[in-house]
C-alpha cells in the first residue's frame, strides 16, 4: 500500500505509527519492572541472590538473541527486494534463535529453582522471575508473529510488495532485543560485578 503513506497526515503508514506508539508504552512497562528489580536486587531474605547467575551461559543465549536481530534485518531486506524465499529462510532463522533463547531461559529457570530460587522465596526472586518471565512472553509472542508471517507468505497472503509487514514484526523484535540488552546489563552484569 505505497499510496497510503502519502495519504496520511504525517506521511507514515498507520501501522508503523501505531507500532512505535505501542512500543513507547512497552518501554514504561519494562522500565517499571527493571526499577523494581533494582530496588530488590539485594532483598533476598536469606535465599539465593545475584551470585546464582551463570554469566557465561546467559551471555551465550543473549548473544543468540542479539544475532536474531541481524537475521531479522536480513529477512526484511530480502522481503524488500521481493525475494520471499530468502525472506522465509531468515524468518525461520530468527524464530529459531528466539526459540533457542527461550529454551535457554527455561533451562536457566529450572536450574535456579533446583538451587532454591523459587518465585515465592524473596522479593528478589519474585522480581527476577516476573521481569525475565515477561520478557520471555514477549519473545514467545514474537515467535508466534514470525511463524504467522512465515505461513502466510507460504499461502500467498503476504505478498512481495508487503514488506511493511516484515518491517513491523522486525520493529517489535528489535525492541524485544533491546529490552534484553538492558535486562542483561542491569539484572545480570552490573549486580554481578557490584556484588562480586
Amino acid at each position, binding site marked *: *500500500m505505497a*499510496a*497510503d503513506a*502519502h*495519504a*496520511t*497526515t*504525517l506521511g*507514515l*503508514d*498507520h*501501522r508503523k*505509527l*501505531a507500532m512505535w*506508539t*505501542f512500543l*513507547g*508504552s*512497552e*518501554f*514504561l*512497562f519494562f522500565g*517499571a*519492572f527493571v526499577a*523494581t528489580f533494582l*530496588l*530488590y536486587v539485594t*532483598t*533476598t*531474605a536469606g535465599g539465593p541472590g545475584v551470585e546464582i547467575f551463570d554469566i557465561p551461559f546467559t551471555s551465550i543465549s543473549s548473544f543468540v538473541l542479539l544475532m536474531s536481530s541481524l537475521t531479522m534485518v536480513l529477512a526484511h531486506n530480502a522481503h524488500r527486494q521481493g525475494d520471499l524465499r530468502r525472506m522465509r529462510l531468515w524468518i525461520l532463522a530468527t524464530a529459531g534463535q528466539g526459540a533457542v533463547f527461550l529454551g535457554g531461559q527455561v533451562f536457566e529457570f529450572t536450574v535456579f529453582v533446583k538451587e532454591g530460587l523459587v*518465585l*515465592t*522465596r*524473596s*522479593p528478589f*526472586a*519474585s*522480581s527476577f522471575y*516476573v521481569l525475565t518471565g*515477561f520478557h520471555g512472553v514477549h519473545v514467545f509472542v514474537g515467535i*508466534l508473529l514470525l511463524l*504467522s508471517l512465515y505461513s*502466510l507468505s507460504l499461502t500467498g*497472503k503476504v*505478498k512481495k510488495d*508487503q514488506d511493511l*509487514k516484515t518491517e513491523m514484526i522486525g520493529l517489535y523484535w528489535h525492541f524485544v532485543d533491546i529490552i534484553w540488552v538492558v535486562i542483561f546489563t542491569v539484572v545480570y552484569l552490573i549486580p554481578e560485578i557490584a556484588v562480586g
Partner: protein
Amino acid sequence: MSSTTTPKLRPTKETGVLSWLATTDHKRIGILYFFTTLVFFFLGGVESGFIRLQLAQAEQSVISEDLYNQIFTMHGITMVFLVVMPLSAAFFNYLIPLMIGARDVAFPRLNAFSYWVYLFGGIFLYSSFFLGGAPAGSWVGYAPLHATEGMSMGFYAIGIQILGLSSLAAAVNFITTILNMRAPGMTFMRMPVFIWMALVTNFLLLFAIPVIAVALFMLQFDTLYGGQFFQPGSGGDPILYQHLFWLFGHPEVYIMILPAMGIVSEILPVGSRKPLFGYAAVVFAGAAIGFIGFGVWAHHMFTSAIGPVARSAFALSTMFIAVPTGIKVFNWVFTMWGGKIRFTTPMLFSVGFVSMFVIGGLSGVTHAIVPHNAQQHDTYYVVAHFHYVLFGGALFGLIAGIYFWFPKVTGKLMSEKLGKWHFWTWLLGFNLTFGPMHMSGLLGQPRRTAVLPGELGATVELYNLLSSLGVIVLTGSALVFLYNLITSIKRGEASGDDPWNARTLEWMTPSPTPSVNFYRIPTITHRDEFWHRKYAEDESGKPVSIPAGASDDHDSDGDDDHAEEHIHMPDPSLWPFVMCLAFFPIAYGMLYFNPWLFALGALWLVVGYFLWITEPLAEGDDDDPEDADDHAAVGAAAH
C-alpha cells in the same frame, strides 16, 4: 458497502444484534460504549445509595461491614474504570474521526476489540459478587492488605488489568488516528480543543497504563501465587506499590478530567457565539497539565512512609500544576465575557462544570499544604474534593457533551425543559451530597469506614444525613435525565443538521451522521472551519453571515459533482468479539490458577488473532485484508 451479489466473506447485516456484534463503525462503537456506561453508572449509583444509606445515621448497620467494604470498593472501581473513562471513550469514538474530517479510526477492528475487552472486563469484575464476594480492598488496592484479602482481590488485579488493555489498545488507535488521519489542511493549531485534549489524554493512557499493569501483575502474583513483591516479611516494600499505583493514578485523574475540559471548550464558544478565548493558551495548558501530571503522584502519599524532602518536592510540583489549571478556568470565563450567551442545557452544564471544578481545584490546592494535608488525607474532605473534580467536573462536562451531540447522533433534540430540570436538580443534589463532606472531613470523619462513629458528634451526623438526602435528589434527577433520553430518542423534536450554530467539522455532515461521515473529505483552511464557512468578516471586522449555498457549508450526498463515487468503508467483523471472549477463560484461569483454562483462553486468543488477520474483505477487491482497515481511513486518496 457489501452487496448481495458478492460472496458473503464478512458479516453484512446492517441491523439486528449481529450487526452490533460485528460493527467496526466508530459511531456505533461509540454508541455501544455510551449505553454500556449507562448500565455501569446505574450499578455504581446503586452502590453509592447503599453507602449513603449506611452512613445516614451514626452507628447503624443496614448492611454488614464486609458487604459495605465490597460496595465502596466497587463503587470506586465502577465510577473510575467503568463509567468516566469509557464514557470519555464513547465521545472519543464518535467524535474524533468526525472532528478531524476522517471516515473512521485508524484501526476499526482494534476499536471494536477495545470495546469488547472493556465490556467483558466489567462483566468479569462484577461476576465477583456471585463468586465469593467482590473486591473489598478499596479502589487503590493497597499492598499488603491486598494479598490478605485473597480471591476477591484477584478479581481486582485481573479485572483492572483487562480494562487497562482495552484503554491501551484504544490509546494506540486514537493517537494514530489523530496524528495521521486529519483532513487536508488541518494542522495541529487548527484542531478543535476537544481533539487536543483527546490526544493528551490518550498519551497519558499510553504511558500510565503500563505502570499500573506492572503494579497489578505484582499484586496478582502476591495475592494469588505467593509472590513477595510487597510482603514485608521477606523485605518487600509496600510503599513501592503506592508509588507505582499513583504514578498511574495521578495521570489517571487527568485522563478523567481532560476529555470533559475538551468538551466544555467546544460548547462554551458555541453557546457564547464567540471563539474560545486564548485557544493556544488552553491547548498548551492542557498539554502542560498532562506533562506535569506525571510528576505529582506522591501527593497522594503525603502521610505515607516518605521523607520531608520528597514531601516538599511533591508539594511544589502539586502547587505548580494549579497554574495551567487556573489558565484554563480564566479562559473559559472570558470566552463567555462579551458574548451573547444562549443558556441551552449543554451550556448550563458547561457553566456548571466550570463553577464546580473551581471548587474542586481550590480544595486541591489546600492538599498541597502538606502539614495540613496530614489532617485532610483519607477523610471526607478528600472525598468531597475528588467528587467536585470528577462528578462536578468530569461528569458535568460529559453530560454537557451528551446534550450537545445528541442531535448529531440521532437527528433529534433532547427536551430543553426536562434538560433544565435535570441541570438544576443535578446541581442541587450534587452540592447537597458532596458540599457537607468538606466539613464532616475537617470535623474528623475518616473515609472508608463502614460505620459513622457516633463519637464524631451531632454536627457530623447532620452533615452525613444531608449527604444522604442529596443522593435522593440526585436519583430523581438521574431519572429525569433517563426519561428525557429515552423519550427524545423515540420522539424528540427534529434538530436539523446544525441546531446550535456550531463551529466544528462534525456539524457539516447531516444529522444523524451517515455511515460514511463525509461524502467529501473537506479541506481545512481555518480553526473552527465550519464557522468560517458560514460567516465572513466585513470591512470593519464584524462577522457577517454568508448566504446559504454560497459556500461549501454542507456536506451532502447525491447530486453533488464532487461527491466520491465509491467510498470504501471498513467491513464489519465478528472476530474482535469472538477473540475477546477468550479473556473469560484467561481471566478465570489466572484467578483459580487453572493452567488448562488459561491455556484454552490463550489458544482461543491466538486462533482468533489468525482469523482476524486472514479475514477477507467483503468486496473481494483486495486480498490483503490487513490493509482494509487503512483503506477506509484514507478512502479519498486511495482510489
